């Protein structure tokens, strides 16, 4: 490990959406937020 790769301080929510391998997770809070918006828009 050289100077360019000093260990990083990880910040932000650990639940943020990301892709690992060929799979892209969709955290529950994203789904719920979208359902809430659809409810607001009378789409469901």
């Amino acid at each position, binding site marked *: 490990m050289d100077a360019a790769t000093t260990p*990083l301080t990880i910040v932000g929510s650990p639940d943020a*959406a990301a892709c690992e391998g060929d799979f892209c997770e969709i955290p529950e809070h994203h789904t719920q937020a979208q359902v809430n918006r659809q409810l607001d828009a009378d789409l469901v």
Partner: protein
Amino acid sequence: MQCPWCYIGKRKFEAGAKEFGGDVEVEYHSFELSPDTPVDFDGTPVDYLSQRKGLPIAQVEQMLERVTGIAKDVGLDYDYDHVHQTNTVISHELIHFAKSKGRQLEMKERLLKAYFVNGEHVGRIPDLVAIAVELGYDEAEVTEALESHRFLADVKADVALAQEYGIQGVPFFVIDGKYGVSGAQEAATFANVLQQVASERDAN
């Protein structure tokens, strides 16, 4: 290139940088999520994910519908009905080619739009050359660069760098070589870390 959260995360980062308000220099690095994907995968992203993960078609369709809805919230019209699942290593080479011309950000945005919104193929050289020519690049020069794989080593070097950092997923943002932000975080998260870095720089 094929990570739906990367385009969404890009928009959120851009919003965060705008909220921060200061100067931000951005450089994109390559990361291959699935390097064994064939260039001409015979099927849709739904087929691909279903086959690879062993998930029912209906569940994959529901997943993509949800991510499409989240993309819409940041102004992106994902069109998974016309997405071409492919191997994207040559598109990463094209981004490095554009970087060598000082135009990386423009190419990154154009290729994400090509894949997720326009339904363009981003795995084949002729399709990528057409995109580059549309942006004003010389056809012969870009064709030579992609056919010779002159920038493949740069792609692999980026992947190796990510491994050194211990990065396993994308999007992943390295800020000032010190802070790591994983995933499509909210804009405020990016604004906060950019402000933190600016404060630290001012103090030094």
